C-alpha cells in the first residue's frame, strides 16, 4: 500500500500539518452526512491525526431563524454523553449555559431565515485518538439581517475511544441542498 504524498518511508516530508480529508457539498436535501475513517494509512485514516477540524456552512429545515445540527461520534446518540457549555449573543445580550444534546450542537440557518442564508461554523475536535474524553471547541455565526446568533461553544464527548466516524445530522428533517461540510486532519510532529 502506498503512503500518502506527505509521507516518504514513514517520515513526514514537509511538515504540512493540515490535511484535507474530505468535503461534501449536498446536491439535494439529505438527513445525515457521514465521514468515516478509512483505516488504510491514507489521508482518510483518522488514526494518524492529533486533531480534526470540521468546517460547516449549512442550512436546515427547522421552522425557525436558527437551526441546530448535531455532530455525533462513533454512532453515539446518547444525550448524556455530550455535556456542553455555550457562550453566545443575539444582538440583545450575551448568555451562557450548559446543556446536553444528542451530539455536538452546531447552529446553522433554519427554514425561516431568508433564502440563500447559511450558517457558518468551525469545530476543533481535540486529541481524537487519545484515551481522554474528547473535547470539541467551536465558533459559529448565523446572521440573518437583524436576527441570528454568534457563539463559542464547547462539548465533551464522554468516551475514551478513538473517533472513527463523524455524523452530521439535521436538527429536524434534512440538511438543505447546498450545505457544505469539510473535514481536515491536523498532524502532530514528534521531534527529538
Amino acid at each position: 500500500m502506498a503512503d500518502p504524498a506527505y509521507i516518504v518511508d514513514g517520515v513526514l516530508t514537509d511538515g504540512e500539518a493540515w490535511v484535507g480529508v474530505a468535503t461534501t457539498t449536498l446536491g439535494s436535501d439529505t438527513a445525515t452526512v457521514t465521514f468515516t475513517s478509512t483505516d488504510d494509512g491514507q489521508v482518510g485514516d483518522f488514526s494518524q491525526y492529533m486533531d480534526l477540524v470540521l468546517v460547516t456552512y449549512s442550512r436546515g429545515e427547522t421552522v425557525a431563524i436558527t437551526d441546530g445540527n448535531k455532530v455525533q461520534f462513533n454512532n453515539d446518540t446518547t444525550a448524556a454523553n455530550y455535556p456542553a457549555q455555550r457562550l453566545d449573543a443575539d444582538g440583545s445580550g450575551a448568555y451562557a449555559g450548559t446543556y446536553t444534546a444528542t451530539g455536538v450542537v452546531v447552529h446553522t440557518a433554519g427554514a425561516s431565515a431568508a433564502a440563500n442564508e447559511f450558517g457558518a461554523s468551525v469545530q476543533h475536535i481535540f486529541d481524537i485518538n487519545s484515551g481522554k474524553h474528547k473535547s470539541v471547541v467551536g465558533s459559529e455565526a448565523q446572521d440573518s439581517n437583524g436576527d441570528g446568533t454568534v457563539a463559542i461553544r464547547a462539548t465533551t464527548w464522554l468516551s475514551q475511544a478513538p473517533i472513527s466516524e463523524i455524523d452530521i445530522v439535521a436538527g429536524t428533517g434534512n440538511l438543505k441542498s447546498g450545505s457544505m461540510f469539510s473535514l481536515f486532519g491536523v498532524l502532530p510532529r514528534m521531534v527529538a
Partner: protein
Amino acid sequence: MAVIEAIATTYLEADVASVTFSAIPQTYEHLQLRMSGKLGRSNHEGEMLINGVSSGSVYSRHRMGGSGSSTNAWASTSADYIVGPYFSGTGAGAANYAVSIVDILDYTNTNKNMTMMYMTYEQGTPNLYFGSALWDGTAAVTSLTYRITPTVSELLTRGSVITLYGLNSS
C-alpha cells in the same frame, strides 16, 4: 512551503514542571499552539512566558468566559507572566483535559508588542474562555514556555500534549 506546518509536538510521558518550545524558526507569519492538558493540583491554572521573560511587569491579560449559566470577565495588568490558556485541575475528573487554541500573530515583527489570543475549554467544570494577553516587548518571539506556577510543587500531568504550528499565507 506548506501553509500550516507542524513545528514540534511535546507529549508528556511523565509529569513535568514546564514545556518550552525554543529556537522557534523565524520563517512563518504566525504561530498557533494547540493544547490538551491537565495539572496535578485541584484548581485550573497555567502560565505562559514569552522568550523566558518572567519579570518586569511586562504582561497584561483579558478574558471573558462562560461557566454554567454565568458569564464572566477578568483583566489584569503589570504581571510577570500570562495567565491562560488553562490546563484543567484534578477536580475536572481523570479523563478530562482542558483544550486550547492559541494564536500568536506576526511574531517576528520587532516593531510591535505581541498580542496573543486564546480559547480554552475545561471539561468537567465546565469553563469556556476567550482571552488575550499583551507582552510589552518588541523582540521577535523565539521561545514559548507553558508552566505551572513555580510556587507550587505540583506538575503538568502525563498525557498532556502541546503542538506548535507555523502559518504562512502562501
